[in-house]
């Protein structure tokens, strides 16, 4: 089972760029989306993130739209609550005509696209290694990298179990869904633990003593590129404040 974001980040045009550069770019935009007023700041961030994703990283437009659509669906559900007021007469359109809801949607859309710009160009393990250099304890970083390893194996197993259940007509109807899902989870949990046991044997053969040393394969960030990123973000913030 492949996850779209992972697939894009592993094969994309920015795969070989330094994670530090991509993180500075996307997280900087994310911070701007949160601190600048949604209009016009959020709109500018949104435009920048979409431009960079489609024009710079060349993420296929269909994939990019689908990736944005799911979180935005949840954002809209939440924002619906902001567009209405409750009082003694019940629900009615908010006094501000939904202005607050629209601004929240704009801010969230900008922030989501900044997050996706990072996630769809940078494999998660690269980010974990970055966190490690920023002071995340080694144990936690190792657990995160192992989690990453296990989750793909377990996703495949879960998908296979589900296929087998469907072949025998599980999952058809709510009662069967509950039972099939319960049986699937109960089948997966011991297998996850069993995988951990067997990996322990496999790693012991290579001298596993608990820690997980690995050579670094990170690429160093280029100073001019970082300067360019920060400059661009400052300019975006400036334009936003000037327009606002």
């Amino acid at each position, binding site marked *: 089972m492949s*996850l779209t*974001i992972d697939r894009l980040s592993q094969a994309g045009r920015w795969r070989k760029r330094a994670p530090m550069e991509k993180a500075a770019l996307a997280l900087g935009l*994310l911070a701007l*989306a*949160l601190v600048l007023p949604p209009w016009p700041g959020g709109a500018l961030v949104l435009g920048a993130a979409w431009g960079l994703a489609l024009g710079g990283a060349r993420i296929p437009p269909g994939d990019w739209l689908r990736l*944005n659509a*799911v*979180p935005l*669906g*949840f954002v809209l*559900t*939440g924002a*619906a*609550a902001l567009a*209405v*007021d*409750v*009082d003694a007469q019940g629900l009615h359109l908010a*006094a*501000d005509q939904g202005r*607050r809801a629209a601004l929240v949607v704009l*801010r*969230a859309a900008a*922030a*989501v696209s900044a*997050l*996706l710009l990072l*996630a769809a160009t940078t494999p*998660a393990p690269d*980010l974990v290694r970055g966190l490690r250099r920023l002071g995340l*304890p080694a*144990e*936690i970083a*190792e*657990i*995160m990298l*192992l*989690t*990453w*390893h*296990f*989750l793909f194996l377990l*996703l495949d197993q879960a998908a296979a179990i*589900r296929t087998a259940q469907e072949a025998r007509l599980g999952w058809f109807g709510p009662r069967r*869904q*509950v039972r099939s899902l*319960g049986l699937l*989870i*109960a089948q*997966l*949990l011991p297998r*996850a*633990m069993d995988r*951990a*046991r067997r990996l*322990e044997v496999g790693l012991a053969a290579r001298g*596993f*003593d*608990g*820690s997980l040393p690995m050579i670094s394969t990170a690429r160093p960030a280029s100073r001019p590129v970082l300067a360019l990123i920060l400059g661009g973000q400052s300019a975006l913030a400036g334009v936003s404040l000037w327009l606002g």
Partner: protein
Amino acid sequence: MHIMEGFLPAGHAIAWTCISAPFVVLGARGLKRILAERPEARLDIAASAGFTFVLSALKLPSVTGSCSHPTGTALGAVQFGPGIMAVIGTIVLLFQGLLLAHGGLSTMGANVFSMAIAGPWVAYGVWRLAGRLGVPFAVAVFLAAFLGDLATYVTTSVQLALAFPDAESGFGGAFAKFAGIFAVTQLPLAVAEGLVTVVVMNALKGRRIRVEGAKA
């Protein structure tokens, strides 16, 4: 129930991060102690975290499409204790944000509080209490998962209401609005999760897999 990236104002995002941080740090300390004694435990913890992530990617088709599945959190809270679950839950939330665009980085503090702290503690508390009161196994499992799920949902509604108080009715009205809107999806899901967890625990028991705190 995840709060999406960018939905909370910066101040609230930072505040919830500060509130969650001590729980996660304490959990990480506990984890370090376990790892100092049993270094290879990192494989089990990682496998559990991977497992919890996979549960979140398995969707029960429901009225509004996909939704979160804290089932793993309830299971994990019972297996590892809610302290460690704060760390595991945080790792899972990070990967959900990065791999599924579900949740987010700025909202992670708030999501960690509702899904990796409030939910597991409630599930764990209910489980222990039910054990002490001699509630039948299946009922205890159902209540732990169901109420753990509800705790997450109520916490999220509180978080949203605090961030977006109603113009006239303030926090109360906003809470009613959010809780009302999400009740449509979250109540049936909480029931479904309770039932699924009962099937899981029964099946695990059938395989004689030890479940912490369960009476044989």
